[in-house]
């Protein structure tokens, strides 16, 4: 084996090869960018954006009475750092609705007559309902509530003996009460797998035609860029649909993931998500110079989709800028859709914003694709 190294001219030939590789690498700007972008992106995302014990989670409160004790308790809850009161509710319907829509992760209710019961030593209960579809996001925060019971009212005077807790917190983990992570992961996987496969399918479609010169023939025929795009996207919508059906089917069969919402709505919105990803992949295809570049662009897009969409790490726990990036990714919106429909039984009304977001992303991608598509060989 080592005798190969001693053959005359071995290193000279290796050097020739190596020089050639460097020259090619330097010419390939996208590869060059990848060398720098991937580590930087990973580092920034992992370092700053991702937080496995998320803080400042959006919380809604429903105050059935206004009392000093109530305010003190709420302040104590906020002081834990895990909760951030973002919504004030006025009715019980709103309480359920705001949780189902996913706008908050927690909703706290202080019932009427809370303070009086407290002063009488009746041990009143405060209700904290959590959206437990993502057990990671809600778990730590719920755990911190125990200490509140002990310490929240310690400085309040004129209260009965405090050696015993004066009230209790009844926490209710909704949608996934047993905190089974597969219930959260399986719907998420539907989105992740679809993102990866759909992007790859169309990202290669135009570059492949250019590389195999078939584009030259195609351009000399009477067919418009829009017709080419639609014709290339539709078959993969069917492929994606089959894929989605498979993952959801196995999720239900093997992991017992429920589908509480409307199956037709799920199918419809999944199709929208599939079409959005295909359009994005297709737009990459019109920008990339060759198939390698298209794959690299797909990968660069896939990475933030995984990290910033709320699939791997709780969305609510990310800093604002990372949430903004997340909002521009289709997976973020689809995760909310698929988790809401499957685990919460949400309907179209609660998902309007996500549907709109997917539509906008799809139209932007299609516009880029059609305008970037070169109708000539100039």
């Amino acid at each position, binding site marked *: 084996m080592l005798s190969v190294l001693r053959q005359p001219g071995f290193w000279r030939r290796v050097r020739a090869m190596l020089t050639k590789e460097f020259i090619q690498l330097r010419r390939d700007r996208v590869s060059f960018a990848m060398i720098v972008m991937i580590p930087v992106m990973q580092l920034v995302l992992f370092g700053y954006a991702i937080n496995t014990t998320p803080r400042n989670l959006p919380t809604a409160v429903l105050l059935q009475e206004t009392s000093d004790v109530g305010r003190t308790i709420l302040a104590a809850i906020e002081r834990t750092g895990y909760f951030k009161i973002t919504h004030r509710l006025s009715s019980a319907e709103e309480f359920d609705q705001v949780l189902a829509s996913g706008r908050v992760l927690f909703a706290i209710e202080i019932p009427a007559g809370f303070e009086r019961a407290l002063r009488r030593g009746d041990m009143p209960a405060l209700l904290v309902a959590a959206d437990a579809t993502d057990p990671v996001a809600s778990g730590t925060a719920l755990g911190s509530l125990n200490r509140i019971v002990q310490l929240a009212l310690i400085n309040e005077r004129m209260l009965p003996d405090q050696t015993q807790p004066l009230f209790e917190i009844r926490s209710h983990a909704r949608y996934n009460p047993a905190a089974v992570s597969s219930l959260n992961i399986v719907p998420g996987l539907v989105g992740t797998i679809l993102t990866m496969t759909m992007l790859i399918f169309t990202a290669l479609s135009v570059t492949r035609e250019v590389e195999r010169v078939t584009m030259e023939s195609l351009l*000399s025929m009477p067919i418009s860029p829009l017709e080419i795009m639609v014709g290339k996207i539709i078959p993969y919508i069917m492929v994606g649909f089959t894929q989605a059906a498979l993952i959801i089917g196995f999720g239900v069969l093997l992991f017992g993931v429920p589908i509480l919402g409307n199956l037709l709505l799920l199918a419809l919105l999944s199709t929208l998500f599939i079409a959005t990803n295909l359009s994005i992949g297709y737009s990459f295809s019109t920008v990339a110079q060759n198939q390698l570049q298209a794959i690299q662009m797909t990968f660069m897009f896939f990475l933030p989709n995984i990290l910033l969409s709320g699939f791997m790490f709780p969305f609510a726990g990310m800093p604002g800028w990372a949430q903004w990036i997340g909002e521009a990714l289709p997976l973020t919106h689809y995760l909310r859709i698929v988790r809401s429909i499957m685990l919460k039984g949400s309907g179209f009304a609660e998902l309007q914003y996500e549907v709109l977001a997917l539509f906008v992303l799809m139209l932007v991608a299609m516009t880029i694709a059609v305008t970037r598509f070169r109708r000539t060989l*100039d």
Partner: protein
Amino acid sequence: MTGAPDIAIDVKGLTKSFDGRVVVRDLSMQVKRGSIYGFLGPNGSGKTTTIRMLCGLLTPDSGEGTCLGYNIRTEADQIKRHVGYMTQRFSLYQDLSVRENLEFVARIYGLNAPVKSAREIIDRLGLHGREEQLAAQLSGGWKQRLALGACTLPSPQLLLLDEPTAGVDPKARREFWNEIHALANDGLTVLVSTHYMDEAERCHEIAYIAYGELLTHGTVEEVIEQSKLITYKVSGDDLQKLLHQLDGKPGVDMVAPFGTSLHVSGRDEKKLEAAIKPYRADKKFVWTRSEPSLEDVFIELMNRSKDNFQ
């Protein structure tokens, strides 16, 4: 529709450059309907670029004109509908079968009965028995035939063929040209680029392009006559030595070996005669005055235009 109805291609002053390098310079040409127009020139002379400008795949930097009466700048869509373009490299789908490729083309052009049209083309081109073969598995000659079939399928009025016979064996080439003549007989106009002189001689008219400029055009006889070239054929021994002695002499514009003889040509009869006089006395050589071949004319044209450019 503009331009005379019997003119298929009518362009003036076409110029195109890539990254500051002029590839086609001030090119004007007219092609009559129903004729076979040969487009000759060395590699990189701008033949492909010109063809692409004619069918709307490239936008000329300047110049204008019509193809089948449609403006090449603004009416590319109509041109595409009536022009069949056969690319230099095989550009149909390698992973589709012969039949699938043809049906695809028929559908893109919106033919009423794509399956039937594809079958007709398969019959006409003798692709029978191969219709289910993948294009990738076809040999060069069959690929070329399939490509021709694909571009004649939508019944175009004009065919643009870019070096269609490159790398194809002589028999397949001959059959290909018979097919082209049959198509032209049916009224189709054909513009074909080639390197082969024998193919040039099968064209009704030819044009020679080098370094992006159209140097001459006309029928083969006209082109030879226009060149005003006087050629002597020399046969005998030791021609290689004679070639070196004559090359570069004043009056001798070109010396080139052709098989067992040498072609010595010049534009100025007197100077040429003077230059070869000493060698004509040599008994070793047999000198005969002859018509210059098309190749003589082209190589001489190319040498001359090279001088102009350098």
